[in-house]
């Protein structure tokens, strides 16, 4: 097991930011660490990367506990921090040479690693340019490259796509898929459900510092009631106050929630067999509609069902 955490706890004064987090990252696997802002993701990552000491619990790298700033096992970890941790006034190449030197790479080895990392993230042709001339997406890619120089087995990415354009996001996903294919273990923290769904084989959901779910996406779906969503585009949009019939709709059996915004009515159902009842309800109240659609439950729904609030809530 590349990474295993056992009962990590971190307190800041009276606040327990992380409360008994345990997770495992095998080689060649991407584990998604999901949670809203303030859930304890970055604190967990900081403990795993050896930046802060846990108050309780331990971090095991290849089965051995990580201890202290100078622990050689830190060489097996590559951290892509949430911030763009780059020196803007230096070139991409100079940045990489600096970060590689921290791992005591010999000049020839460092040169090869820098070339390979820049090549992987598609920045070879801008290697000598100052980072301050880069776009946000290019900086994000360089941020990733800087974590790869010492060829770590475990990559920890702390919300690596914040503020990134779709093209760079796709490029980063492609890079991560390739790295996973090379046998790297990846711990990917995010509050974008679609990213975790796309990249990760297993999802760990944390809320208020506690792990509330740890399973594959399919496992999470199966473990929860098969919530379904129904969207109805009404012919006459609601203007101002919600329609008088909305509370009655919410009171129907098998309806978890019903919200209306403009002409769109969004209904969360226990199962799709309730769709005819909803449409019948609208027909009885002479509400005409122009379009009807259903969709599968996603991680957002799963998170909502687990915690009672959405992933994007602070």
């Amino acid at each position, binding site marked *: 097991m590349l990474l295993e955490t056992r009962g990590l706890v971190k307190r800041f004064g009276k606040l327990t930011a992380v409360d008994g987090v345990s997770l495992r990252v095998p080689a060649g696997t991407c584990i998604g660490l999901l949670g809203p802002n303030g859930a304890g993701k970055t604190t967990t990552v*900081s403990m795993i*990367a*050896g930046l802060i000491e846990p108050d309780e619990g331990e971090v095991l790298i290849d089965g051995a506990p990580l201890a202290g*700033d100078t622990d050689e096992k*830190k060489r097996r970890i590559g951290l892509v*921090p949430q*911030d763009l941790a780059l020196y803007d006034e230096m070139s991409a190449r100079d940045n990489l040479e600096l*970060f590689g030197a921290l791992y005591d790479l010999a000049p020839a080895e460092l040169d090869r690693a820098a070339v390979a990392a820049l090549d992987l993230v598609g920045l070879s042709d801008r290697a000598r340019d100052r980072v301050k001339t880069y776009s946000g997406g290019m900086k994000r890619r360089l941020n990733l490259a*800087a974590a790869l120089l010492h060829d770590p087995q475990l990559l920890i990415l702390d919300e690596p796509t914040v503020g990134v354009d779709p093209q760079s996001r796709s490029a980063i996903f492609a890079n991560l898929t390739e790295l996973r294919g090379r046998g790297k273990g990846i711990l990917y923290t995010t509050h974008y459900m679609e990213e975790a769904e796309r990249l990760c084989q297993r999802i760990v959901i944390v809320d208020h510092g506690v792990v509330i779910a740890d399973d594959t996406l399919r496992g999470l779906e199966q473990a929860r009631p098969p919530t379904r969503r129904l969207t109805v585009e009404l012919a006459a949009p609601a203007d101002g106050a919600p329609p008088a019939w909305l509370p009655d709709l919410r009171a129907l059996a098998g309806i978890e929630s019903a919200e209306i915004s403009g002409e769109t009515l969004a209904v969360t159902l226990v199962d799709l067999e309730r769709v005819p009842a909803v449409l019948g309800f609208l027909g009885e109240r002479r509400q005409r509609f122009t379009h009807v659609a259903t969709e599968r439950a996603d991680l957002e729904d799963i998170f909502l069902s687990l915690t009672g609030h959405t992933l994007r809530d602070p």
Partner: protein
Amino acid sequence: MRRALVALVRKDLKLFRSDKRAVIVSLVLPAALALMFGMIFGAERHEVHVKTRVVDLDGSAGSQRIAGALAADKMLGARPATRAEADDLLRHDDIDVAVVIPRGFVARAAQGDQPTIEILSNPTSVAETGIARGVVDGVVARAIAPDLGPEAARCAGAGEPYATTVKPVSSGDTTYDGGSHALAGMGVQFILIGAVDSAVGMLNERQRGLFRRLRTAPLARAVLIASRLISGALVALLVIAFLYAFGSFTMGVSIKGSQAGFALVAVGFALMASALGLFMATIGKTPQATRGIGIFVVLIATMLSGAWFPAFLFPEWMQKATLFVPTRWAVDGLDAMTWRGLPLADAVLPAAVLFLSALALAAWSTFRFRWEE
């Protein structure tokens, strides 16, 4: 429009108030400086004291009266010393003046020979020397009046029965060089300002998450602190080298004392200034607050170093207190090795103080710097 204006002003005031350390510095800095300037230039002027020794080579009753009168004077309070002791104290900047009563002074004055009384002066104590000369003239005339005979009275018609000369004393033939002193003072001040920038830069790096990346590598925190200490010191040494090269070219400044001693003091100060930058980074929570605190520290440290004002303007207690300020040792050490022309041995104590200060500040920073926001 009015509401927007009020809201914007209120927003700025809220932001200002939210950084409590910056607020405190904004209020404390001008108040503290005003207090210090007040103490230096204000009501305590009557406490001005010219550090004086009297060398009585005459040994007559009249010369003893002179020595007694100089000792009794409130401003001079002269203490007896041998000529060698007086020279040594002057060369080491420990006193301002020494009054030398030559052998046979009183007898020759009584005969109307108009002997010369010598005031040996510290070249940095220009104003003190002027004060001392005025006091000596008055004291000596009164003290030897009973000894003066008719010849002296005849001579007195043409002028004083004795003459007074002032002779600057430093090492060898060197004399006070304002250019050298200015380079030391301004060098100290601007290197310390550079240290403030270094502290602010360190906190900016922390804010940008760069330390998170650096600390992911298997490195001791002491290595990260040491790297900042060394880089800051190298920049400070570059500034010192440039300043003295510039001074040499434009003002003819030279290292008249020990070059090794100059290098020792320069390296000590460069390390101390760099370590002070690290220290400032530990006490300010934000870059803005650190800049405020840093400017405060730099202004006080520079002022107390003697770079701005002659030391005689300080109250006596402040002159002693400044010995606890490392920058005072930096200015004194650089002065000693340049225009004073002192040997390597005289660089050892200033350099030791600077190295020990650097060590203490760096140690504090290693243990106290917050690596995470």
